[in-house]
């Protein structure tokens, strides 16, 4: 047992002496949370549109004003030529074209119907549907105003009134949704990358050669190698939680100690993965590459950016072995929903069994003798 302490001491001296890794370890929570939480957003605040007004009437101007007055839209040009407008989209100078037909006002008054065309650059599908939805909601607003004006007596409210309320994230704030997921990413990177690299470093530098001809036991060595990163990851998580609370103003609705407890178990799993990767590799480059391979797939499938429910069935099944998916789900439940232990019980038990299995498997694979 004392041996573990000696290894721990050695590891911490080395970590604190590493002038390139040490600052990053403690900058990660700041940078990831601040940068990612603000940039990883699907909101589109600045739709650049071109108005092709063939009518030039007071009604068409009113509609155009509706767009240019909206906070989401910026008018980047006005033209009478459809071709010119298309060219602007091709040069990526504009995202959307609003085309108002000739005789728009006349048709509206005489025939009670008129046409507008909306053309959207749909290279990014999800952005395009959002831009489209913004434009439609402005046009339907405009519609309502016309109806009120033209048929003031007849216009009544719609029979079914829609009244939405959003729970757990009432303002549909994307930051609130992202932060718990980013926190999971944070501890995963520390746990998986640093631990696997640290163990492989001894192999690559040859320092394990002399060390292996000592009475150090395998378990002592592994414990001494993994515990430092468990501690560092927990400290990083704590920093992250404090940032979430005091920078982003995200109240942790559930019990923060339950969150830390789950994180502690989750880290055992991630460290086990790191140890496993170190048994597969002989150089830090290999360890780095394999860690990335796993991590990128885990992240893409974790539900961090896109809901797991919308993935195909095989992907959802595959997520059973994705540690990130479990912890992101649990983390969001605790932080945003205030779930207690009973609510997360099932996922927690799977995660625990997974962690225990992984650490035992990797420890058995690790060899002092080849």
């Amino acid at each position, binding site marked *: 047992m*004392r*041996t573990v302490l*000696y*290894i721990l001491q*050695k590891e911490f*001296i*080395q970590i604190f*002496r*590493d002038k390139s890794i040490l600052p990053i370890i403690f900058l990660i929570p700041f940078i990831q949370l601040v940068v990612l939480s603000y940039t990883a957003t699907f909101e589109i605040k600045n739709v650049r549109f071109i108005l092709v007004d063939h009518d030039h009437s007071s009604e068409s101007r009113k509609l155009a004003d509706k767009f240019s007055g909206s906070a989401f839209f910026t008018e980047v040009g006005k033209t009478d030529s459809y071709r010119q407008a298309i060219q602007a989209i091709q040069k990526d100078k504009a995202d959307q074209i609003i085309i108002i037909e000739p005789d728009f006002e006349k048709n509206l008054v005489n025939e009670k119907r008129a046409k507008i065309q909306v053309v959207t650059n749909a290279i990014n599908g999800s952005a395009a549907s959002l831009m489209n939805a913004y434009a439609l909601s402005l046009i339907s607003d405009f519609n309502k105003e016309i109806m009120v004006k033209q048929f003031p007596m007849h216009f009544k409210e719609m029979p079914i009134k829609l009244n939405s309320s959003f729970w757990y994230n009432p303002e549909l704030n994307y930051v609130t949704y992202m932060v718990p997921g980013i926190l999971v990413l944070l501890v995963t990177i520390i746990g998986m990358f640093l631990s696997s690299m640290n163990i492989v470093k001894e192999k690559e*530098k*040859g*320092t*394990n*050669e*002399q*060390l*292996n*001809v*000592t*009475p*150090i036991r395998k378990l002592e060595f592994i414990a001494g190698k993994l515990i430092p990163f468990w501690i560092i990851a927990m400290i990083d998580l704590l920093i992250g939680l404090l940032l979430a609370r005091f920078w982003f103003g995200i109240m942790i609705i559930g019990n923060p100690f339950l969150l830390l407890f789950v994180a502690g178990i989750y880290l055992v799993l991630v460290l086990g993965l790191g140890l496993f990767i170190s048994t597969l590799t002989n150089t830090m480059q290999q360890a780095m590459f394999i860690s990335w391979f796993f991590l990128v797939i885990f992240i893409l499938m974790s539900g961090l950016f896109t809901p797991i429910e919308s993935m195909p069935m095989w992907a959802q099944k595959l997520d059973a072995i994705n540690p990130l998916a479990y912890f992101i789900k649990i983390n969001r439940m605790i932080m945003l929903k205030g779930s207690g232990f009973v609510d997360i019980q099932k996922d927690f038990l799977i995660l625990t069994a997974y962690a225990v299995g992984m650490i035992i498997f990797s420890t058995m694979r690790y060899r002092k*003798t*080849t």
Partner: protein
Amino acid sequence: MSVSVKIKDLEKSYDKVDALKNLNLEIRPNELFGFIGPDGSGKTTLFRILTTLILADKGTIKVGNYDVVKNYKEIRKITGYMPGRFSLYMDLTVEENLLFYARIFNVNIRDNLHLIDDIYSHISPFKNRRAGALSGGMKQKLALSCALIHKPDLLVLDEPTTGVDAVSRKEFWELLKKMQERGITILVSTPYMDEAALCDRVALMQTGRLMSVDKPQNIVDNFPENILNVKVRKMHPVLNDLLGFEGAERVYRFGDAIHLATRRDAGEMKERIYHYLAEKGYQEITISPLEPVIEDCFLALMENPDK
């Protein structure tokens, strides 16, 4: 407590390449035993099996009464190992490295510091310097200190003097002699043949086999050939001119001279070579018969493994 090392029928191959082939050897307690051989001769493989780092395909090694496979835990306690590649922590200081090794061997550094005082006194002025910033010779002394801090019975040194300057090499061997006086059995490998003379006994290794095992003096005494040391003013072409000279077993560069080994009478050969070289136009020719040194013997053995 001095231990013996008994190697029996040892074999090891990597992907069908034989690294060790049917090795049998017994090293006596408290012996300073040298393994001499070129790169790839199997020295490191033998040492790695001996220090429980890899497993042999066949055969056994016993250190004292301990088997390297069955009793690997005990072996690790009584063995001090210094790998060929510097394997201490470059980012820890001299003192931190030593302290770490003392602790994981569960020994008190104060109780044992006197054991390595001869060596550690050379590097203790730099005890707060990072190991990575030490010179090659200093690194070796630190590695030796760390290998000795737990008072091992067996010390295994894999090419400890490779890449170390001549002065440091000499000093290093003097230190080894001192450690031997403490009763430690020492196994050392080296590619430098001149170091063989400093061992009690040496084994010449080539392509995984032991070529000869004997006291360095016996190897020299039993050498059947005469050596002629040839020097001329213009050394460059002389090796080519002497290759295949009638009666010469071997002609090779040796330091700044040429050695010619022969089984014939040294005096007669000397005359013939002198005339031959003079005819070729060489100037300042000096040819002198020499007592063979261990390098001459090894070169002969490596060339004709059957003899």
